[in-house]
């Protein structure tokens, strides 16, 4: 009984919501534009965050520490140091660079100028370990432990670069998060106000419904569905604009710049962002409606 009543109700609520949208076309379009604007910015921020996150991850992976061994170390000692370094927890990869490897790669880096190395012994550079940490924030403790190992002469890291990257990305993440929160709150209130006008115009109608014995939810549901619909349409328009915007901007900028900015390809991040935007639009619309109707139900 309750289920059939609820099911019958859903059909009624949906048809009421669409009738009301039709009667209040201008208001509905204003709300849609509001949602669209907020979600457009939100989508833009999400694209930034997704790319910043990916960029950070890539830099973190590339960020390595080089631990140089004593110049006089024997091959056995070098192996012992390598094993000790490998045993440190939190390390993703350790690569052993022998004296010969170092010599060859140094020579290669000089290119045509390698002639200056003519006559030098291939063991004039010390052996070393290249270390990549699992988490960039764990790098400093790892460096401290590596320094304690007997046979390590010097540890070279790009500490300042790493610190800069960490603080820069966290600023961007926080900035986007705060802007998103603010935008969401603003959007909810603008929608609430738009729907409030609609509700206010229909105050008499709501009172009549209450006199005839309508429950609060019976009156609320059509407004909520209306809000959700407005929110979803707003979200779809914002998604469309993001696509069109990036497609036209994409053809204007050269590929190598694009691949530097869009670490995550647009087509890969957009489906999930679209889903989030649609969910957000629906949520904003529903909350706006609930806020708007609340005051008028106390009869």
């Amino acid at each position: 009984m309750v289920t059939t009543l609820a099911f019958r109700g859903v059909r009624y609520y949906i048809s009421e919501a669409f009738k009301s949208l039709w009667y209040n076309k201008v208001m509905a379009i204003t709300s849609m534009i509001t949602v669209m604007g907020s979600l457009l910015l939100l989508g833009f921020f999400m694209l930034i965050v997704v790319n910043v996150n990916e960029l950070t991850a890539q830099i973190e992976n590339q960020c390595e520490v080089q631990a140089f061994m004593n110049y006089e170390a024997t091959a056995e000692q070098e192996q012992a140091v390598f094993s000790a370094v490998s045993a440190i927890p939190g390390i993703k990869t350790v690569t052993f660079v022998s004296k010969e490897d170092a010599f060859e790669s140094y020579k290669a880096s000089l290119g045509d100028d390698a002639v200056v190395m003519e006559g030098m012994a291939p063991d004039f550079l010390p052996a070393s370990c290249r270390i990549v940490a699992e988490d960039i924030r764990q790098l400093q403790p790892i460096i401290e432990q590596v320094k304690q190992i007997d046979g390590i002469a010097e540890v070279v890291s790009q500490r300042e670069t790493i610190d800069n990257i960490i603080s820069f990305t966290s600023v961007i993440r926080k900035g986007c998060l705060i802007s998103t929160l603010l935008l969401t709150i603003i959007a909810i209130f603008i929608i609430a106000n738009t729907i409030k006008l609609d509700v206010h115009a229909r105050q008499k109608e709501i009172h009549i419904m209450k006199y005839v014995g309508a429950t609060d939810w019976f009156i609320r549901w059509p407004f909520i569905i209306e809000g959700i619909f407005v929110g979803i349409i707003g979200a779809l328009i914002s998604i469309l604009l993001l696509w069109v915007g990036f497609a036209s901007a994409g053809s204007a900028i050269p590929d190598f710049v694009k691949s530097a900015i869009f670490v995550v390809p647009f087509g890969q991040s957009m489906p999930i962002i679209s889903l989030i935007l649609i969910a957000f639009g629906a949520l904003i619309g529903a909350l706006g409606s609930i806020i708007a109707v609340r005051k008028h139900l106390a009869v």
Partner: protein
Amino acid sequence: MITFDHVSKIYEDNNTVALQDVSFTVEKGEFVFLVGHSGAGKSSVIRMLLCEERPTSGTVTVNGFDIGSLPRKQIPALRRSLGVVFQDFRLLNNRTVYDNVAFAMNIIGAPSKVVRRRVPEVLSLVDLAHKARAYPSQLSGGEQQRVSMARALVNHPAILIADEPTGNLDIKRSDEIMGILEKINQNGTTVVMATHADQIVDAMKKRVITLDMGSIVRDEEKGGYNIGV
């Protein structure tokens, strides 16, 4: 059906006494007029029947609902057990006559099959079957009031409450309304009607409860309109 037991209503904001120690009972199938000057307390009685107001002291029982302690969530259930007709009709102007009446059935979740059968039935009872597709603004006052009566009756209420239903109508239209009310009453529905229309009250020869300054001054079977000067 309706019991007022030593009911008083004092409005706190301006300390007005709207009702003072009012007691009466309306049995099933009765037809009762509530008469009195403006401000005598008729509206307070009507508002309490609908649980728009609650008694300051005493108890009000309507269709088994205790108005004084009725939880907010139960108010719709109370109102569904009543049919209400107002002086200003209170129709939904953006819906047709048919939809206005069907609305009261949609609220209680009536199956559309039942709605399609019942709405024309009740519209012909008030003689408006031919106006089903019209909007309230296209109807005369008397017709609008008949629509609101159809809406009040569509769910077979045990009690019909009419607050000055003829207040905006001329004598001929008023007589039509009273004819319908009497027919409804003869079918077993309890009718409580607040009114200023002395001629109607005198002609109907029904029970008359007269209020003055918030108290009952007369309660007569087959009474007349006599509110004193």
